[in-house]
């Protein structure tokens, strides 16, 4: 028996030799002290695995590894005969099993004869030495699984298109006498040209080969009879196709389990998820077609991929027609209501109808009920804001009317809306009652008054009821991808409290919100809005701050955002939080994409516009886009002081000083104590040459921003005072940077900028572009620093 040390050395030897290692056994055989060492050895083995690759394979020149799995590795290679790049898949040839080797090669050659636009073209298959190589067309694109992992969501129509193409491909595979056996989202590429391509035939077997082991696919996709030991058939491929479409639509699987045993048990117990329970917007006929493909009994499934495809193709007409039918139904209701309704519902502007949800009145006296009602109003606003063809003003602006005498004309003119929704909320015996009025303004014609009632667990159903009522009136379409949740009323209350803290902004409130959201998700881990809230609150906490040093994002942030997106890929807040994560990693392209997605999903969440501007557009210097984003935010949230302040900031960077001054004065008129406004006002004034006014404003501003005052003193001829200000605060590098710039001292300004960059890349990135720092423009050191900070030019 070798000693533990000897065993470890042997293991190290195997890693060096590149021999296969059974890591599970190695780990369990090791004594506790060495288990960690084995784990580290496994990491080193992975490093070796990444770097080892052949230079050539037959006539192919290997360029790089592009994928790997339990089967072997896939490389990009140059085929000198075809004079083009190909993908080369290398599998180990089992020396003890010649039959298997020749079967893979035989099958590769059979597949090479299948010519189908949705199947990767196989060029050849060969064994050289101890490896089998299959080389094929190199498809550039992404797999469906990668797209889903990046938050992509697919509409029913898109899923149908994918399904029709794949059924046709699988039918061609079957016609060639093969069974695919490993149909899954990882094995389907969507090419750059939009072509859907079925890949990876390394584990396929001939149809009539009963001897081969069939458990090659990912168990979540494998038909129950195959899990039970039966051979794979065309119907088991149909099952996998059905699972794939289920997965594409929901991000989940019909039968779940953490391992093979659990999946088998779930099949045995007949426990499976219903497609429409997860995606209620999937038309029932389409859901039925997919659910037939995943029937537990093979005989009840579509018997061929072709018939599955044909059924999907028929459903495609239904999906395309659905919108029209919905519109027709709405029209019927309008007609039933008579002419009086027909003229009411048209938005006066003839454009997209714009509405506001005014704070609902709380009819209860119980403690906390006021908070609950406000939270509920916010949630109603959110649920309406995602309706296609309807524009809903932000909650922030609507809440400006809370507690004020009711004046709908004033609301209409200040918010620029055509309709308002208002009402009251009461609770009794665990039932929630919402009385709502939908009113056209400024005419104040009441379009409907309705009572919505639900038990305390089904609060989110009320949002759907209200949405449906509006949809019918306004002839807009519901974006049918909203999820419905059942939640304990206490937990929902806690969620609303968390939302309230979150909406109030500021570090303390965000911290409190994060704590409450965390409590909600720990008790209701499938409640996507709470994960999104948690992500959003944590993103707020890691927002660029006024301190000298940057605060790195909370490590929970990424997980919370990803979790929310997994559960519901259409939550704007989760995309925005992910955008914040990408921004902190300086992954600018992804950050931009995430924020744009968030804004597209819910344009009324104007803090997302601000975060996009501050977190991404300012550091990368895209001021034009920043101006555009904030103008959109101002329209959606016309009374928001926060939006106006950020807008003032951006106006200054864009050189639009007069507009910055206007904004600042507007804010001061609404709230003279709103923080930091004096800074932007002071800056806009000194850039407009109004030095005296600027000085008065900056002298009363928060003293921690003395850098602006220093800059002003320097450029207005009071250089000694400016220099003294800098000298008195030697540690405040970023503030002093402005003063040195004002004094025209390029070197010291740059040195202060470098020091700032060491502790706060975000500030350095943003401030180096400020008009105060114009003297450094074109300086090669700036270009170098940008490079250093991973910023675009």
């Amino acid at each position, binding site marked *: 028996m070798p000693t533990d040390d000897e065993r470890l050395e042997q293991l190290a030897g195997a890693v060096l030799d590149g021999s296969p290692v059974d890591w599970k056994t190695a780990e369990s055989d090791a004594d506790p002290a060495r288990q960690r060492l084995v784990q580290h050895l496994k990491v*080193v083995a992975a490093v070796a695995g990444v770097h080892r690759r052949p230079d050539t394979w037959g006539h192919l020149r290997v360029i790089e590894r592009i994928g790997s799995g339990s089967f072997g590795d896939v490389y990009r290679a140059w085929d000198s005969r075809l004079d083009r790049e190909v993908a080369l898949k290398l599998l180990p040839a089992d020396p003890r099993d010649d039959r298997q080797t020749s079967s893979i090669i035989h099958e590769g050659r059979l597949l090479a004869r299948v010519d189908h636009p949705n199947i990767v073209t196989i060029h050849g298959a060969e064994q050289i030495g101890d490896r089998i190589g299959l080389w094929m067309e190199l498809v550039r694109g992404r797999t469906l699984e990668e797209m889903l992992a*990046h938050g992509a969501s697919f509409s029913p129509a898109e899923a149908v298109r994918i399904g029709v193409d794949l059924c046709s491909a699988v039918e061609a595979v079957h016609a060639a006498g093969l069974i695919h056996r490993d149909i899954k989202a990882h094995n389907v590429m969507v090419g750059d040209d939009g072509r859907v391509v079925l890949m990876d035939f390394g584990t396929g077997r001939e149809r009539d080969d009963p001897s081969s082991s069939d458990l090659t696919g990912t168990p979540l996709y494998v038909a129950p009879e195959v899990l039970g030991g039966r051979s794979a058939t065309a119907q088991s491929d149909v099952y996998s196709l059905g699972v794939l479409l289920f997965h594409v639509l929901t991000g989940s699987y019909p039968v779940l389990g953490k391992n093979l045993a659990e999946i088998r048990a779930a099949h045995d117990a007949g426990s499976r998820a219903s497609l429409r329970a997860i995606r209620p917007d999937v038309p029932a006929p389409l859901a039925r077609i997919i659910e037939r493909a995943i029937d537990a009994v093979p005989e009840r499934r579509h018997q061929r991929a072709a018939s599955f495809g044909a059924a999907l193709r028929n459903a495609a007409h239904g999906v395309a027609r659905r919108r029209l039918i919905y519109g027709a139904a709405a029209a019927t209701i309008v007609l039933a209501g008579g002419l009086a309704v027909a003229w009411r519902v048209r938005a006066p502007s003839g454009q997209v109808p714009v509405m506001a949800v005014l704070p609902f009145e709380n009819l209860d006296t119980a403690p906390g009920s006021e908070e609950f009602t406000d939270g509920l109003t916010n949630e109603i606003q959110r649920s309406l804001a995602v309706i296609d063809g309807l524009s809903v003003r932000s909650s922030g602006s609507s809440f400006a009317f809370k507690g004020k005498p009711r004046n709908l004309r004033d609301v209409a003119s200040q918010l620029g809306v055509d309709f308002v929704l208002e009402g009251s909320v009461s609770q009794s015996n665990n039932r929630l009652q919402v009385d709502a009025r939908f009113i056209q303004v400024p005419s104040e014609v009441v379009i409907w008054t309705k009572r919505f009632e639900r038990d305390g667990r089904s609060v989110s159903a009320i949002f759907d009821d209200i949405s449906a009522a509006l949809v019918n009136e306004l002839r807009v379409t519901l974006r049918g991808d909203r999820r419905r949740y059942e939640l304990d009323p206490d937990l929902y209350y806690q969620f609303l409290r968390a939302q309230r803290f979150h909406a109030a902004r500021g570090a303390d409130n965000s911290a409190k919100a994060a704590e409450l959201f965390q409590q909600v998700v720990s008790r209701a881990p499938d409640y996507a809005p709470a994960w999104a809230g948690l992500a959003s609150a944590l993103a707020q906490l890691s927002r660029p701050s006024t301190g000298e040093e940057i605060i790195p994002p909370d490590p929970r942030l990424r997980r919370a955002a990803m979790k929310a997106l997994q559960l519901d890929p259409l939550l704007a807040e989760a995309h925005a939080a992910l955008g914040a994560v990408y921004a902190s990693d300086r992954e600018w392209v992804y950050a931009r994409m995430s924020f744009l997605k968030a804004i597209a999903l819910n344009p009324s969440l104007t803090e997302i516009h601000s975060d996009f501007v501050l977190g991404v557009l300012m550091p990368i210097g895209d001021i034009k886009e920043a101006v555009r984003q904030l103008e959109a935010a101002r329209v959606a949230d016309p009374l928001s002081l926060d939006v106006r302040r950020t807008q003032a900031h951006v106006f200054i960077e864009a050189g639009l000083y007069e507009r910055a001054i206007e904004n600042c004065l507007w804010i001061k008129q609404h709230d003279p104590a709103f923080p930091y406004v004096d800074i932007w006002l002071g800056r806009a004034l000194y850039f407009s040459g109004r030095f005296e006014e600027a000085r008065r404003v900056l002298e009363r501003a928060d003293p921690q921003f003395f850098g602006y005052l220093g800059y002003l003193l320097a450029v207005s001829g009071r250089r000694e005072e400016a220099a003294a200000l800098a000298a008195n605060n030697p540690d405040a590098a970023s503030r002093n940077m402005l003063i040195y710039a004002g004094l025209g001292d390029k070197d010291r300004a740059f040195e202060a900028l470098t020091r700032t960059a060491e502790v706060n890349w975000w500030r350095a990135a943003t401030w180096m572009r400020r008009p105060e720092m114009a003297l450094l423009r074109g300086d090669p050191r700036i270009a170098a620093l940008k490079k*250093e900070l991973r910023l675009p030019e």
Partner: protein
Amino acid sequence: MGADLPGRDRKEPDGPGQRDVESTHRLLERARAGDEEATNQLFARHVRPLQRWASGRLPKWARDMTDTDDLVQETLLQTFKRIEQFEPRGVGALNAYLRQAVLNRIREELRRKGRRPDATGLSALEADGQSPLEQAIGNEAIERYERALSSLRPDEQDAIIGRIEFGYTYEELARELGKPTPDAARKAAQRALVRLIEEMARANG
């Protein structure tokens, strides 16, 4: 990988510098003294393994056959121009030095590519921001590995880098490390690897 098993090394057809058995150490001494032929041989010996190696360290979007190969070639040319500045610490360490030079160049390249104007929209959507190594083990593990590696003796570093990262056969490794036989090189690499994982465990607390 089968072709790298002990005992098969001699059959490897076209490993770098196979025909020339002069040790890297000797070549390096000559190169540092200004011998151009020695520099050329060193270059020829290292360029392929480093090119192969680099493709594992560049994210997909930044990779391209010509790009990666040119980048490594260019870096080696630059590095060998200043080879007299390289101070060999004990035996070897040239691999670690060259690897660092390429790594620095890659970082620079990533920063440069990161701000390419076409890195927007769809083309970036397909792009994968991580290198194959990052994808395989994640950044944290890479950092732990790198830290532990840098705490090893130069000859140990060379053994690990040569075998694990550059994929040298044991014969090539023997030549790099100045060992008399491939088997001696394998033993040295084995000891270095055990030291490496001990360091990784230590760093992990």
